[in-house]
Each structure stands twice: as C-alpha cells, then as structure tokens.
C-alpha cells in the first residue's frame, strides 16, 4: 500500500510541532522517499579529500543508498561519480579505495572512463556506429554528481539540481568544521587510524537525534560510565587519572552540567551541543601542543581555537563531528530499520601524536561494536525500533523545552537539555523531503 509517494501533505502531516509519527522511523515507503527526495535534495557528506591525495585515487561510499565514488581527477580536482557502469550497471571499482591510474576500466566489457567520468574508449567501437549512440544515456560515461563542494577538505555533494546552494544550506554551521581544522597548527586534517564500522538495527534518524540527546548519558550509560566512576573511586589516592577514565567518566555528569553546556541551533537542521563547555573540556593538556599552536596562530588566537569545546555538531542529514577530538560519525542508511555507523578519525597535521592516540582511544571506547558505551546506546535504539510497532500510541514525543516561536529563530543558544535540535532536524526533514514535490 502506498500512502506517501507523491503526497507531500501526507508527509508533512508526519511531523508536528512537538511530536513525529512513528512512520518516519518504521515505514519502508517513507525510507524509500527519503532516498529519492530528501537525500538528493540535501548536501550530503561524501568523504575527506585526504582519502584521495593523488590523481587516480578513489574511495567508494554512498549518498543515501546510492553508490558513489570520490575520485581525484588528473587535474587535481576532486569529483564525485555514480559508481555504476553506463553499459550494464556493473560497479566499476573492485576495492573500497585504491588508485585506478589515469582511467577506470569496467571489469565486465572493458569500457573505460577518465577520472572525471567521461567515456574514454569502448572495445569494438565500430559496432556502435550509426546506432545513435551519441544520444544514448551511456554516451557521457559514468554520470557525475554535478554539485560538489570541498570545504576545507570535507567533500559534500548534492545529487539534485534544485535545492539550496552550499552556503545557504550550511550557513554559520561551517564554523564547527573551521574549528576542527584550525586545531592543526598548519590548518590541515588527514584521515588516520582506520574506520570503525558498526551495524545498527534501527533507523538512521535515531542515531542523528541521539547526538544532541543530553538527557540520556547519565541514564543509559550508567552501566558503562557509572561503572568507570565506581571502579576508579577504588584506585589508591594519588594515582594518575588514565586517559580512558578522562574520556568515559564525564558521561556521568549530572543534569545541570548538560543544561548549562548549552545547545546552538542553526538553519536547515544543523546545530551543536556544548556552547559553553562539554564532556571534552577537561582533558589533560598534551605536551608540546599549545606551543605549536601559539607559534602558528599567536597566543590569543590559539587560545580562542582551543577554548572552543563544542561537543557534537550535527550536520543534517547524516553526519556528526566532534571538533575537540577530530572525529566524524557517518550514519549511513541501509533500510528503515538498518543503519551502518562509520566513525572516522583525523590526525591534526603537525600536532603531537598523542592527540591522535587520544582520538583513537575515544573512538574505540565509545564507537566500536565492542564498546560498552555503544552497547548501551544500541540497546535503546533497537528497543525503540521494536516498540514503535505498537499501535497504542503512534507518536514520538519531542516536546522538551518547546517554545511556540522557535521555528522562526536561528543561530540561538538555548538550554542544553532542550529537544529543540530534534524538532529542528524534523523541520529540515519535511523541507527537504517535500522540496519540489
């Protein structure tokens, strides 16, 4: 039964001011429409340009559920191509990432393409003479995603021609990327350490929402962070606090901590937690780092960069970054009830190794399929995915600290336990879902 296809009014009705209908999480039809409309209408994160440093380097990923390639063309520019052969649809690349040399060659019938996707050669080309091949869908080669933007190394793409331009879509939210990049004394990041891939049997939006959900850590993570605090209490007095305890224990901070840390709301579903401080504020200084920053930026500016303690910045639709620890989580939708979570880490070029070491420790303690903190969260998402099939109540509540005039406001800082960011994400969801319908 189709309820929502071509029916913008029905889709709009799923999102109310203070609640959303469960179909946004459980309906396969709504999921398909997200893939057809919402993702193609949005600027979606593809990858980081340090993953493809040299001409011919490529990295395969997805925009929504569509396979694409990030590739460095011979002219040094980064392109995004649909990863399917124009002939029969075969995936072009064999590995997730690698170097293809000067051209791609399809492994099925050896059509070849330049690294900007354009058709280079076809074996037995004569067979296409006088067939009108030039007018075919195959003639241009591997279809490029036409709207690509590389922002300080982070590559985004928009599949549809309509929608907002890059600046309008992101607005002031780009300041979180700026802060993450500025933390390198030379203003450069490099993907490093390997990616953690964690399969979740839940809707991708549950993960996005959770990134600004500050009322759950002290409850859902009592089992992990609470145990860390308890075990650490038994350490002999004077023992140096290990990095791992510095990382996990702040999850147990009380409600006031999260209320006071603040949340900022930007346009189009973007926003961040940790306006004033965050769970990353009290990490030990890394020897030699501040000196490098001071030499690069001057003392005042270096301090300003490092005093920024933004916790989680959500970029609608499906990534979150942590500037202070150089981490990016990519929530890749697979089905209404299935999401692949990739957690990527970055090295601050020319900064001490210990920063990367801490970033990697954070990633494995919090975001790995073997992480006890991850176990706490996934249990809740899966229970919700299951519970939402109940017909007793078809609505999910997002009401906390609601104010009737909030839809018109942007770039405001509010109480850190507000569910405003979630309401805001769903306003953006409606906008990009129904755009052009």
């Amino acid at each position, binding site marked *: 039964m189709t309820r929502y296809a071509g029916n913008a009014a029905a889709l709009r009705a799923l999102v109310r001011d203070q609640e959303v209908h469960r179909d946004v999480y459980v309906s396969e039809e709504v999921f398909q429409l997200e893939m057809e409309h919402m993702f193609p209408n949005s600027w979606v994160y593809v990858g980081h340009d340090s993953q493809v440093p040299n001409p011919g380097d490529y990295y395969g990923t997805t925009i929504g559920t569509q396979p694409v390639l990030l590739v460095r063309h011979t002219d040094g520019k980064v392109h995004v191509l649909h990863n399917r052969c124009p002939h029969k649809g075969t995936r072009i690349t064999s590995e997730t990432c690698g170097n293809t040399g000067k051209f791609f060659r399809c492994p099925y019938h050896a059509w070849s393409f330049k690294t900007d996707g354009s058709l280079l050669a076809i074996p037995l080309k004569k067979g296409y003479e006088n067939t009108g091949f030039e007018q075919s869908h195959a003639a241009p080669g591997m279809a490029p995603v036409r709207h690509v933007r590389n922002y300080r190394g982070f590559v985004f793409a928009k599949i549809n021609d309509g929608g907002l331009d890059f600046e309008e879509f992101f607005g002031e939210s780009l300041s979180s990327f700026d802060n993450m990049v500025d933390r390198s004394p030379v203003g450069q990041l490099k993907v490093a350490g390997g990616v953690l891939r964690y399969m979740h049997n839940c809707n991708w939006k549950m993960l996005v929402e959770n990134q600004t959900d500050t009322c759950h850590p002290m409850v859902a993570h009592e*089992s992990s962070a609470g145990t860390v605090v308890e075990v650490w209490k038994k350490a002999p007095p004077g023992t140096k606090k290990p990095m791992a305890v510095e990382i996990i224990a702040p999850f147990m901070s009380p409600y006031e901590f999260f209320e006071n840390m603040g949340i900022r709301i930007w346009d189009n579903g973007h926003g961040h937690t940790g306006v004033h401080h965050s769970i990353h504020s009290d990490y030990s200084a890394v020897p030699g780092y501040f000196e490098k920053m001071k030499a690069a930026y001057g003392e005042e500016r270096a301090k300003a960069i490092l005093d920024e303690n933004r916790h989680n910045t959500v970029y609608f639709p499906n990534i979150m970054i942590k500037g202070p620890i150089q981490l990016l989580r990519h929530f890749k939708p697979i089905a209404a009830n299935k999401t692949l979570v990739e957690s990527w880490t970055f090295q601050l070029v020319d900064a001490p190794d210990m920063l990367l070491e801490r970033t990697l420790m954070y990633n*494995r303690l919090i975001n790995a399929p073997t992480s006890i903190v991850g176990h706490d969260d996934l249990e809740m998402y899966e229970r919700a995915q299951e519970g939402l099939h109940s017909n007793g109540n078809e609505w999910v509540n997002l009401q906390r600290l609601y104010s009737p005039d909030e839809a018109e406001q942007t770039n405001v800082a509010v109480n850190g336990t507000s569910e405003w960011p979630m309401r805001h994400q769903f306003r953006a969801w409606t906008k990009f879902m129904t755009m052009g319908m």
Partner: protein
Amino acid sequence: MSMVAEAPLKNAVPTDQELIDFVVREARLIDQQRFDEWLDMYADDAFYWMPLEWNQTDPRLTCSLMYEDKLLLSIRVERLKGARTFSQKPKSRCHHVLQTPQVDSRDAAANSYVTWTAMHYVETRLEEQTLYAAWATHHLSVEDGRLKIKLKRVDLINCDAAFGNIQLFM
C-alpha cells in the same frame, strides 16, 4: 557446572602441556562466565588486544576494536554484573571451540611463552546467534609460580567487517 580449579605449575618452567591447558582453561572460564577468576589469569600490566586491521602492528596510532588494560577489563566485568546494564538484560552467552593451542615460542630465560590458537567463537543473546572465526595469540609468563597472560591478541578473520554488538570476550 564443574568448577575445575587451576592446577599449580609443577616446575619453574612450564611444559607445553601446561601452556596448552592454561589457554584452554581461559576459554572455559569465559564460557562459564567465571569472569573474576578469568581476570585473575591476567598480569597486572596485561593487555587484551583485538585489532581492527588485518596484520595490524600498532595498537596506538591505528584503531583497534579493543586494546584494553586490566582496569578497562575489570570495568567490563563489573558492568556485566550491573543492575542497570540493559544491553545484558537478558544476558549474552558465549561458546568457544578451540583447536589445540600450538606453542609458537618458549624462552625460559626471558620468562616468555607464546601460543597460537585457532578458534570459532559463538556469542548469543535471545534469538541472535553470531559465529566468529579468529586466532588467539597468548603471550604468557610465570609470576609467583603461576602462569599469567601478558598479552592476548585476538585476530578476527573478518576484522574489517561491520559488526553488531560484540559484548563478551573471545
């Protein structure tokens, strides 16, 4: 459930059979969820390492699934007992099938013994049952007349796959 106790080493230098028995016993303690006894098999400066990369050499600047010292391992064990550990309500169970451990190296002078064990590991919770294939490398030494684990390295055959929850110990 039988509670077979650890047999004391007969001599200062362990025999191959004693190394093998020790490794087999470790898996048994995990399967029987005797986690306090299990932790006691680890030296105070021990690490439990589960690499993320095939043939990974560096646990520090390359990410791992687990690289945990005894403090973190003991936190896991405490957490498993917790009243509000919801991801363990109901509890997971696990099952090891080991090939006979092979003694790869023995250096009595350095008090260092290394074994290599191919295994299948099953973790289950309610309807979900997942099979993992891995190799465990144990770096052992003798402390106060008892064998202790200095490093246990678990290499999954599909270490680079996307996994769901892995909640117990391989």
